[in-house]
């Protein structure tokens, strides 16, 4: 599903990641755990190829970072769902339209969009808030909308970058439940977090990262 082979990324300020190698199997749940600035987000960026490695390579499905063309990157991202700590919802669209956007991008028909958006919203428990604007719902609900947007296209892999970072423990637990439910249906989940105590409670492989390198 996802393979990272000796990946190195260096930023101008000297930070980055180095010698990162791991794989995520289909349907697997993997937690990438490390403190802030450890390189977790950079690792995820190499997976959705927002950042191409200076050394090594990343394989996601049929795409390889060594050979991928710029024009193919949007199509790679359609096979991946991404959830961010700051939700990144479109403030000028309601919940339904936010989720529908992923399907608009791939040119799905209106009937299909409606059916799949309602199902995704049901999956995250937000069917009743479809016509609310993002600023009319809570932080936890906003993150659920972001998750619905990420899974509505039934991706093979869900990337979550600190999805609970902005939420209180109770709401964070609710989000974790949603992610686990998605994982049990066969979607691989790679979640980056600094909260080791939280992920310890869940069944999943933990990969630790610090100063840009994986800890053995």
């Amino acid at each position: 599903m996802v393979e990272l082979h000796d990946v190195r990324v260096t930023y101008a300020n000297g930070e980055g990641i180095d010698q990162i190698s791991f794989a995520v199997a289909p349907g697997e749940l993997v937690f990438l755990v490390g403190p802030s600035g450890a390189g977790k987000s950079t690792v995820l960026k190499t997976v959705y190829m927002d950042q191409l490695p200076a050394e090594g390579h990343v394989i996601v499905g049929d795409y390889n970072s060594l050979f991928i063309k710029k024009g193919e990157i949007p199509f790679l991202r359609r096979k991946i769902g991404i959830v961010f700590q700051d939700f990144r919802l479109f403030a000028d669209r309601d919940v339904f339209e936010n989720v529908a956007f992923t399907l608009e991008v791939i040119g799905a028909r209106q009937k299909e969009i409606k059916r799949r958006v309602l199902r995704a919203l049901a999956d995250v428990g937000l069917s009743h808030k479809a016509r609310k604007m993002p600023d009319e719902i809570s932080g936890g609900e906003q993150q659920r909308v972001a998750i619905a947007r990420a899974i509505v296209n039934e991706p093979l892999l869900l990337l979550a970058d600190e999805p609970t970072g902005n939420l209180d423990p109770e709401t964070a637990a609710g989000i974790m439940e949603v992610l686990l439910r998605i994982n049990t249906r066969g979607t691989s989940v790679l979640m980056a977090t600094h909260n080791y105590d939280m992920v310890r409670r869940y069944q999943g492989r933990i990969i630790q990262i610090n100063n840009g390198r994986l800890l053995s």
Partner: protein
Amino acid sequence: MNFRYMLKETADGFKRAWGSCLLSILTIAFFLALLGFLALVSLNIDYFKRTLNDRLQLQVFISSVLDDQAIADLSQRISRIPGVRKVSFISKQMAAEEFQKEFGRELFAVLEENPLPSSFVVQLGLDGEDEGRIRQLVGRIEQEEGVDEVVYHFQTLFRLQRYARLAATVSWILVLFVTFGSLFVVSNNIRLVIAARKQIITTMQLVGATPSFIRTPLILEGTLQGMIGALLAALGLYVVNRVLSGLVPGLLALPPGALVFLVAIGSLLGFLGSLLAIKRYL
């Protein structure tokens, strides 16, 4: 690509930043209306010039000592001068008849003989724009033996020619001004839209939107701004045309094709303006 979605996004783009969109549309409308108005002025100057050209004629008064043969020779010599279309002879007798027709018989009642000279009416086949050539031709006729005087009334035509040249120069300057002005206005407006939506655009890229999916609504928005601005300009010109036609009979209106062309130009400028912003800032 979902066409319905693109249209909706474009319409939403207008709604989101209606103030700057309106400003952009009105500026383009003003630019294009100015251009159209100048085209209207040029069209009418050109029309008057052509009308005057058709009536371009000289009166060549000839010496009273010339006999019939000399007059015929002179007529032939004048006819052969390049730029002369037709030479008609007006005898003393014909001139007198013409005079009497216009002013009555009183003058000839007190005169013992006909004081009016014979003349040629020389019609020119020159392009009226060529003031220099007309003056050259007049000079050449004046040099012919047997010619007393050449009379012509081309001052209005020459003045019109100067106006036409001025209008053409101003038009070209204005075309450049309008082109760069419109491109700048649309491009700046789209740049602001891109800056305001930077985060949204990034998120779009992350969920797999292709560059064309992100750019198309922005290009449509710019093109529509140009098109609406041009439509307003065309409407304004149509009204000005109607009002002026009422005030000045015989005034030519811009043909419908020109107004359609104006709309096409406006759309093209909008399209290019947004494309410029996208190439630069997206």
